């Protein structure tokens, strides 16, 4: 077991806040910076990490067969064609949850440790059983939330759980930030969120319709070298994870300059 492998749980209180999207984009970003990275789909109920990465049709085996010793790990790992530093370990079928134990998750992660520098675990939302399995296998976590009261409340609860399981450090990603709404105080501000959650902010991700476009195509934004706002945010997050100091984007300045407007115009033309 190589000790410098970072096993990072990507989790949230509520579903639909952007965990899977972050896992996919962060995975591609880290891989393209030269780090061998595995993304592990642990959201057995709502698996769609394969879809986002455009790897759905290449899945033959899953973590389930690996654990049942019906195939080797490298048979189940799906290497990304355009970004070979990234591999996906697909989840088994939802029934797998019934027998999966925390030890099983630990076993899988230990196997991945040999080959990868980063292991990102796309975790089921909230406080489900699957979450506890995933928690047992990692030391580090990223909490994803939106600037909404209910999402923050649920995130707070999960942070409490992570604390009791001794997961540390826990960092925060605030997703779907809308600068205009923040300015007009129709949305919780960054301070409102970090005040309650009291976690270091790993990054912001701006609301960006290109995220939805890329999701439907199965090509994460960070894969196609997009310069859209969210793509820059994801890439910044990857850099910060690696210890680089990248300043936070200032939502107040986003989308207001002429250059930004022009770039957005260009993007709508291109895509």
């Amino acid at each position, binding site marked *: 077991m190589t000790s410098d492998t970072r096993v990072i749980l990507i989790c949230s209180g509520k579903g639909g806040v952007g965990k899977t999207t972050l896992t996919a984009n962060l995975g591609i970003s880290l891989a393209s910076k030269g780090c061998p990275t595995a993304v592990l789909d642990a959201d057995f109920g709502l698996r769609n990490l394969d879809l986002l990465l455009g790897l759905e049709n290449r899945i033959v085996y899953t973590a389930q067969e690996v654990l049942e010793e019906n195939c080797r790990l490298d048979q189940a790992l799906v290497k990304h064609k355009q970004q070979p530093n990234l591999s996906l370990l697909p989840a088994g079928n939802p029934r797998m949850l019934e027998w999966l134990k925390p030890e099983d998750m630990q076993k899988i992660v230990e196997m991945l440790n040999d080959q990868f520098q980063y292991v990102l675990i796309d975790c089921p939302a909230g406080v489900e059983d699957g979450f506890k399995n995933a928690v047992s296998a990692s030391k580090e976590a990223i909490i994803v939330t939106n600037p909404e009261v209910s999402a923050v*409340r*649920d995130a*707070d*609860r999960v*942070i*409490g759980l992570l*604390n009791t399981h001794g997961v540390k450090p826990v960092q925060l990603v605030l997703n779907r930030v809308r600068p205009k709404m923040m300015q007009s105080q129709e949305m919780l501000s960054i301070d409102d969120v970090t005040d*309650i959650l*009291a976690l270091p902010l790993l990054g912001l991700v701006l609301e960006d319709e290109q995220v939805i476009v890329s999701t439907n195509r199965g090509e994460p934004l960070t894969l196609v070298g997009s310069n859209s706002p969210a793509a820059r945010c994801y890439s910044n997050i990857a850099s910060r994870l690696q210890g680089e100091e990248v300043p936070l984007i200032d939502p107040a300045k986003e989308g207001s300059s002429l250059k930004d407007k022009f770039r957005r115009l260009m993007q709508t033309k291109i895509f």
Partner: protein
Amino acid sequence: MKKVLYFPTEKKESWQSFIELKVKELKRGLIEINSGNWQLKCRDIIYLKNLCERYNLTIVSINSYIPETIISANSLGFESSLELEFAEKSKRTFDNEIINSLQSPSTFFHQGTLRSGESLDVNEDLLILGDVNPGAIVSAGGNVMIWGRLLGIAHAGKHGNDHAKITALQLRPVQLRISNKIARGPKEKPEQGLAEEALIEEGVIVIKPAKNS
């Protein structure tokens, strides 16, 4: 002769390198540590202890005006006391209460923030060093004292004690309960840094600046 080792007053740098330099200068003997407004966890205090031992210094006491530091130091068997002279004026009113309850056997301590979904229910007085977040509930047979922000729900005097109080550095609860009375939290945000207390006056729950008791 006892020497005193003061922590940096500036919060910019980390204290470790600063302290290490100071310790090297002092060399052997007894020292008292004053951590000022730095909050030290147990592991910080163990670090200090090891550092001092390396330079043949013996720590006789650890003082600070952060209660968390005092509790950490106490739990590791160090003599320690809460310093008041540096404390911000606004917090000072609350300090006496904290000190009294630190010495009272009928107080239940909780160190750390209570997050959404978490709860604490005790029969004694309750002292929390940390925040009570939205979605968290705390209740006590006696008073509830929160060295932090109350943003969730607190219930004092839950067995029907009308004299129970709820005190917090910032009182912005969803709901307050004292004895069998219930009040919704105030809409407007309180002034920063003013400790406040909630108590029953003439049958209703009122909130006012915490008075020096």
